[in-house]
């Protein structure tokens, strides 16, 4: 039986945005999209699993105010679930934001997308947000703009959003039922009053749904983010997924609640737990159906700069930017050349993958989850102890499928905080729960032993190799060794 290494449909076209059938946007799903939409997704790191290995995004924090309160957010910090908590972003004026964006775009030509996502709600800061967008769509037309919102002020902003270079809007929708909403949102600011409880949730939900419909009608792509809160909306999110999909949302991204007491959020202080990696994955699987699910989201902080999963913000602080002299016209020419080269490389890689399909013997084996340590480019190139996150792949007789990424705590930080190293390593191993193999470029003796003891096989033999190819090679070895014969095991691949 001939099987592609990737989940590529045989008839898949080379030019579509993403070739891994696993990611937010599969070939299959892209194929029936218009060329216009496909083009919008092609080089957007957040929308295309493939693109995020090559293209970078940045966020600017121009919009600190918010018009609602979420129980997972403490406004003393960045929005806990739309960015990394506890790190206050550098607040920029619209002029500074424009300057920073152009400086980054000139220095990191892979940067294709500028997002405004907080720390508050961009649409509760209409003037600051639109001034930034207006200037950029005029002076840096090769940058895609996107915005994230809680949706309360969205219907009134759609008209203006459509005027700028805005292809994408992200709406955080955690519920469609005011009963559930009342447990997530303590209050909203609406028509000059503070409104609480179910009444508040009802208004918010109505505005979100209306905003979604209006955006879709205008041809603007909509991604819906949902925060999974066990015991609050976990049972409800499949319904949310169904409804937003019906209304034409392009992607649904279910993210885990982050709730630590030290963030001072309602959930943190009241002891609300976040979902386990397994629970999150099960929900993502049940929501996926024929819906595009985004699984490579990194919940980046509100002023992150660089490829997904990395943050080069420190190179572009305001004082450093003041000293930079940017010739954006020249930069645009350079950017264009580099973007074309990247797209050519992506296409080539895709084509060569289609060629190098591995001939799998007819297998009747169960699927296996594997964790991969990588810093990008689609290869295994991270030391186990340096990995800040693992990509989770499912290998089965159907091929390799990207499932999600899981964040870790670094257990080897290299400084003298190593006193807690053991517990951190244990924590890391717990992050890998459900995986049977971990692929990395290298791994130390101690973690090796502990992983084995936890029933996870470490593997450093495929360093620098293509992830999917390595995952399938290991899977085949396991199959040949007769480790995968329990055919009764439920196949995730078919779920």
């Amino acid at each position: 039986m001939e099987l592609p290494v990737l989940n590529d449909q045989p008839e898949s076209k080379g030019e579509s945005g993403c070739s891994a059938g696993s990611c937010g946007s599969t070939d299959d799903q892209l194929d029936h999209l218009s060329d216009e939409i496909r083009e919008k997704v092609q080089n957007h790191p957040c929308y295309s699993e493939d693109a995020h290995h090559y293209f970078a995004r940045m966020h600017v924090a121009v919009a600190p105010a918010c018009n609602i309160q979420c129980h997972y957010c403490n406004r003393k910090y960045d929005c806990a679930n739309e960015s990394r908590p506890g790190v206050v972003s550098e607040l920029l004026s619209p002029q500074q934001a424009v300057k920073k964006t152009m400086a980054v775009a000139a220095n990191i030509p892979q940067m294709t997308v500028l997002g405004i996502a907080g720390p508050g709600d961009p649409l509760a800061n209409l003037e600051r947000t639109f001034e930034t967008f207006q200037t950029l769509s005029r002076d840096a037309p090769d940058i895609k703009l996107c915005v994230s919102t809680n949706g309360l002020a969205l219907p009134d902003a759609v008209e203006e959003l459509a005027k700028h270079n805005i292809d994408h809007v992200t709406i955080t929708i955690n519920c469609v039922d005011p009963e559930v909403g009342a447990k997530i949102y303590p209050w909203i600011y609406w028509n000059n009053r503070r409104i609480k409880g179910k009444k508040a949730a009802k208004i918010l939900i109505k505005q979100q749904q209306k905003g979604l419909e209006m955006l879709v009608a205008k041809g603007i792509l909509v991604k819906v983010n949902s925060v999974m809160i066990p015991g609050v909306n976990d049972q409800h999110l499949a319904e949310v997924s169904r409804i937003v999909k019906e209304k034409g949302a392009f992607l649904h991204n279910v993210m885990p609640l982050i709730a630590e007491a030290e963030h001072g959020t309602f959930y943190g202080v009241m002891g609300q737990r976040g979902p386990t990696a397994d629970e999150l994955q099960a929900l993502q699987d049940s929501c996926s159906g024929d819906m595009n699910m985004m699984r490579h989201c990194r919940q980046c902080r509100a002023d992150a700069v660089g490829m997904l999963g990395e943050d080069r913000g420190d190179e572009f602080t305001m004082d450093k930017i003041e000293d930079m002299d940017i010739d954006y016209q020249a930069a645009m020419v350079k950017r264009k050349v580099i973007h074309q080269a990247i797209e050519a490389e992506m296409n080539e890689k895709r084509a060569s993958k289609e060629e190098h399909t591995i001939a799998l013997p007819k297998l009747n084996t169960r699927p296996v989850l594997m964790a991969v340590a990588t810093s990008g480019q689609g290869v295994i190139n991270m030391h186990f102890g340096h990995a800040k996150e693992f990509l989770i792949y499912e290998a089965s007789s159907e091929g390799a499928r990207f499932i999600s990424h899981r964040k870790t705590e670094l257990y080897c930080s290299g400084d003298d905080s190593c006193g807690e190293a053991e517990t951190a390593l244990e924590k890391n191993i717990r992050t890998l729960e459900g995986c049977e193999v971990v692929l990395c470029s290298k791994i130390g003796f101690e973690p090796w032993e502990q992983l084995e003891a936890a029933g996870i096989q470490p593997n450093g033999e495929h360093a620098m190799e293509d992830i999917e190819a390595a995952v399938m090679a290991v899977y085949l070895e396991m199959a040949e060794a007769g480790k995968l014969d329990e055919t009764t095991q439920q196949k995730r691949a078919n779920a």
Partner: protein
Amino acid sequence: MSLSIIESCVNCFACEPVCPSEAIYEAKPHFLINSKKCTECEGDFADPQCATICPIEGAILNALGEAINPPGSLTGIPPEKMAEAMAELQAH
């Protein structure tokens, strides 16, 4: 008569654009209310707008110096629960 903003303000900007009297201004270390301009929103709105959108309990005081949004009123976190959680963190 005027409202005032105290040091627990986190400079989130929310209050500034909603003030009908342009009484609120960005200042260091936190936003301030110009007491000559503040009308307590009388004649414009039923509730003082700044205190109605401010997400931080205790950051805005009324003319008598009392918190308009006392502890627990916005987040729903009972003050003793908050104290407990913070004490626990300090102990670490």
